[in-house]
């Protein structure tokens, strides 16, 4: 070992820094900064409160020191959950690319009616032309906004477990005008209503939506057919193996990508939220006009 530094000087530096030497230099009684004592148990409520306050002290210290450190925090950093919880109001080509919305299915499975929306093929899969996707997505968002503004009911269908939260949040954004189907669509929901909902519900409630948004239309062909029979306009994410004509407003994109579904679902639901807000503003203006026209009370 002593000869080696002469022959290979760089080894001397690494040998000096080697962990074994560091460890040997440290005294045998190692100071530990985190207790790994597992025998300590929290018996009384006071023990628990002490435990909580110790943790809170550390948290407070970090919070106090935060302004002096990096400006990056939870709100300013990227999280994967943001695509579900805080989707953008408008999609861009780059965000669609980042979400992987341009990946189609195998080119051998490409539907001939999809050709106008395909950019080409690469590595055996069809690449979807996002220059077509983006305006069609914006058109679909306009439709959602207009229907919501007119007071229509919008139903979001996404029957895979990973896109179930997407449709749930999308329906929440539309308030009372939003509905969702996160599990299997039961055949006959629109065409066999009396059997499903009962006579009095069908007679007293409006049981047909005004617009249906499908995030995985290939698994919900039955729902599409029922919408066609009941004259309900449909919007759907169309992949390269699907005929775009099955829905009224196709959005050519990857239907297997969760992030793409979150992005598209988010954009559409935010447009719907705007429509709802516009409707409310309209109604308020109308009611204020009514009140000013009518004579006051008494």
């Amino acid at each position, binding site marked *: 070992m002593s000869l080696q530094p002469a022959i290979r000087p760089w080894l001397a530096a690494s040998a000096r820094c080697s962990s074994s030497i560091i460890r040997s230099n440290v005294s045998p009684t190692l100071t530990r900064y985190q207790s790994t004592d*597992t025998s300590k*148990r929290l018996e009384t409520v006071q023990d*628990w409160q002490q435990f909580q306050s110790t*943790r809170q002290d550390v948290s407070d210290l970090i919070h106090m020191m935060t302004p002096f450190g990096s400006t990056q925090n939870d709100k300013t950093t990227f999280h994967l959950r943001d695509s579900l919880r805080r989707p953008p109001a408008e999609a861009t080509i780059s965000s669609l690319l980042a979400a992987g919305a341009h990946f189609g299915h195998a080119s051998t499975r490409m539907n001939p009616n999809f050709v106008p929306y395909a950019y080409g093929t690469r590595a055996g899969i069809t690449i979807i032309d996002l220059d077509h996707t983006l305006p069609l997505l914006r058109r679909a968002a306009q439709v959602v906004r207009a229907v919501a503004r007119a007071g229509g009911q919008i139903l979001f269908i996404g029957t895979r477990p990973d896109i179930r939260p997407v449709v749930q949040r999308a329906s*929440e954004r539309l308030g009372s005008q939003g509905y969702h*189907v*996160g599990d299997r669509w039961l055949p006959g*929901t629109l065409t066999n209503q009396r059997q499903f909902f009962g006579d009095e*519900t069908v007679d007293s409630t409006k*049981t047909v939506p005004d617009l249906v948004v499908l995030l995985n239309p290939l698994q919900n062909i039955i729902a599409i057919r029922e919408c066609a029979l009941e004259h309900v306009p449909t919007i759907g994410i169309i992949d390269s193996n699907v005929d775009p004509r099955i829905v009224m407003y196709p959005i050519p994109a990857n239907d297997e990508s969760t992030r793409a579904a979150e992005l598209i679902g988010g954009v559409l639901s935010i447009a719907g939220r705007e429509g709802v807000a516009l409707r409310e503003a309209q109604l308020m203006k109308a009611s204020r006009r009514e009140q000013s026209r009518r004579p006051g009370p008494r």
Partner: protein
Amino acid sequence: MNVLRTSVHLLPATRLPRHAIQRAYATTARPFVPPAQLRDLDNPGPRRGDRQGGDREPRQRVKPPPESPSFYTSRPVYYDQIIQLEKAIGQVRGSLKTLQLLPLPAFARASLPPLHPVWKTQDEMTLDFETKMTTTRYRKVTKLLSQLNEYNRIARTAGCTELADGIDSIVSMFESGKKDAFLARGKRKVVILDEFGRSYTVGRRKTSSARVWMIPVRQEKKESPKAVAVEEELNMEELFGVERAAEPETVKMEQVKVTTSTILVNNLPLNEYFSVPADRERATRPFKVAGVLGAYNVFAIVRGGGTTGQSDALLQGIAKGLVAHEPELTTMFRRAKLTRRDPRMVERKKTGLAKARKRYTWVKR
């Protein structure tokens, strides 16, 4: 029309008849407009037979929309509940994080006392959710509820009563009504005293059973017995005029009041019912072990079997009753095997044998 007329002179010499060129089709003369298109749906105007009234709302043609956002799943109650539970879990998780109780290190998790949940059965939940509760759905619901139960356990142990009460209010909706019975299964039933302070217990031995009611004998409040005046001894010193020396200490004889209690078995006193003294000894053994002879009145109804079985059954009934009145005797009685139900029963006779065990004489040939 003008086009037709001007083009007439351009046509070849053979002229078509006038009615063929200028025939007025209904569709060209007056285009057809469907009557429905002319109707104004928003302002239908006054109906026939309507009186001239003030402002009237336009007749509502639109039915109100469904309330639940899960309406089109055909199982709105179930899906809405799932969503509510998931939201509750998220909120509770956030609160516990704020309270520095999540994530919980291993040693803290080991210090949590158990909190066993007992959820409703699948059939009971079917009524609650208005949809058939398949195993998948039931497991999904109970998984969410168990998660909430875990958070409840943490919150309650750490003393966060408001949060724990909030979780309780959610979780109690799904708990079985038979929770206490289920959790107490396998454990001995707790005997409670009624409004008069009586205990009711049952003892069994062989085929006898004894139903025993016990009540402590009422102690009359008596003032402590005054020190019985010791007769003053004849003071020899006084008689002889000598000053009394040290007075002897007056020995206070405290009279111990021996209470008498009544033990009635099938309405007869103990000694009448059990003529054999050994049976009486056996029946009153718990009192002797506890040292409370005469402190309890006993009324028992004994049925079945013979004298030994009945006296042993009475023993067990009395022992259980004593434990109900004085729980500190539990360990002592368990060690003395007084509260134990003796499992020995008369063994049945088997075929090929004279009795349960007795074999017929073995014959070599």
